[in-house]
């Protein structure tokens, strides 16, 4: 296949240069730290998280499923906002949506919210928010 018109390899030269510098820098730092750096191991230094909390007990313990349910509920509304923002910004701007589309899109958004409402009511009635 012939190269696309206007394709010029030399235009990408800075990127290759950049790549070479990054790789060189990363490699040099690793080697230098390995060769030059002093190494004195203390018991504190050998902990998994040197400056964090002291590890207590096993990390693999069970969490109550209610945490996950709430987290999922939160995500749903988070994503809902993500969808609503572009619509709110674009729909009523000059030169945004064509006039004949604004009606259907409005109803589409309403259906979307209604579906989420159904899910919310379902969760609520099933007792997801009841923190027994």
């Amino acid at each position: 296949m012939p190269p696309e018109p206007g394709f010029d390899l030399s235009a990408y030269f800075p990127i290759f240069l950049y790549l070479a510098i990054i790789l060189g820098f990363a490699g040099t730092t690793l080697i230098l730290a390995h060769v030059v750096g002093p190494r004195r191991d203390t018991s504190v230094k050998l902990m998994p998280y040197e400056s964090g909390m002291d590890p207590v007990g096993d990390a693999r313990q069970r969490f109550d499923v209610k945490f996950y349910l709430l987290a999922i509920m939160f995500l749903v509304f988070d994503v809902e906002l993500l969808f609503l923002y572009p619509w709110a910004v674009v729909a009523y701007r000059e030169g945004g949506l064509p006039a004949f589309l604004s009606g259907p899109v409005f109803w589409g958004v309403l259906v979307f919210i209604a579906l989420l409402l159904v899910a919310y009511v379902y969760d609520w009635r099933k007792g997801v928010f009841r923190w027994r």
Partner: protein
Amino acid sequence: MGTESLSRALVEFFPHLLPEGILVAIACVVFLGATTRAGRNLWYLLSLGALATGVLLIIAQGPPLSGSNSNRPETFASPVLFDNLTWFIRLLAFGGGLVFVLFSWSEVPEKQAADFLGCMLVTIAGLSMCGSANDLIGLFLSLEMISIPTYVLLYLPRYDEASQEASMKYFLLSIFSSAFLLFGFSYLYGLAGTTNLSGILHALDTTDVRDRPALASVVLIMVVAGLGFKITAAPFHFYAPDVYQGAPTVGAALLAFIPKAAGFVALLRVLGFVFPAAVSARAGIGMAFGDQTPILLCFLAAVTMFVGNLLALWQDNLKRLFAYSSIAHAGYMLIALAAAPLLRQAGRNEGADGIEALLYYLVAYGAMTVGAFAVISYLSTPERPIETVDDLAGLSRSHPGVALLMVLFLFSLIGIPLTAGFTGKFLIFFGALAVPGGERATLFPILAVLGMINAAIGAWYYLRLVAVMYLRTSVRPVEGKWCPAGLAAVGICALLTLGLSLPPGADWLVQAARKASGATTAAAPK
């Protein structure tokens, strides 16, 4: 044609989706109803009403006249397409949905009945949408509409370890296969520059085969792999036995039919086996990704049949046995798909076209497999579940009528004359035998003979069930329960299995399948 009228096509399809809309709305009502104390009968009647309304709407709308929407530029903008295949699949989805609702009436425990029903309605709407998808994104979403509720369906009615294993296995492997499918779709978008299926097929068809990048075969392999999971084609079938075994009976029946139908429809659409009227198939159907497609499908079909039938011989668990049987039947349907391009190229007017045979077999397979599962579900009680082959012993004494119906379904699965299974196998095998000579002259007759050998192998394990039911007696006879809805589901499946095998029913179905395959609109120009 201005851009405005093209974008209007984005909006104008909404009224056409009324049946699916009603179904999803009723599913929402049922989900909300699941939180109240109302009994299941209300929700089941409501969903039966919605499905029946859908069937009536679809029948009233009728199949679109051929050529009525040909060459409309809107086809390249609209995310949905209403052609004869759409009509066929919608009717299949809603009709099948009616049977599944009757089937599950008394299977699911009272507490989960409404949730189960809601998930099932969404699945049925997904299959129906899959038939009308004209866009990669729409197609993927409708396939997910089938998959996601299925994860819930598999886990809802039972809380034992087998059920957990089944739903987890299906969930993980299903998202894995979706990833393959999306990978293929993204390359497809890269090839054609549009997600519109008509646009993609048009772009691929107008490019000369030699200029087509090798990427097309990557797309072909990825799409066949992703959809092969849904139709349980051979290297992607591993989940089926374990999942069917752990699933509730109605869940296993649903898995055996709905994802398989959706997978085959998606294959027909994406690989260009059924062209939209606006696109002319210059290279012939099914050749959009190069003429290697039939070869790939041939090998897939042969391996799938052998794996399904040979492994089914070793099974003692009924659901595992039917899982392998459904794998084997996917293999038979793949023969029809593989033979379709060359048959259409030959342009024969008599005999069965490949796609026609595939669609016929899909309906026949649905009737007999769902029927067999419905019998198992009808006979099972919590005190005496029907799990293994031996549990069926002495059925001819305790339930002579039901045993006779089970024999009908098993004979149909074997392919004994006067059943829909026979007519379907006849159409598929003689279609493959009739593929005209050429460079691949020997491939398809060999495939047809392999298919017949497999049908003979299959007869062994189906007849084993018949023998157990009629020749052995049980220490503890099958109890069964009186459940009119479950019996109605068995009855409908039996009627279809018998009625579709003989001329009036068979002719009607073959005609509908022929229209859906688009054989009349896209006669092969050579």
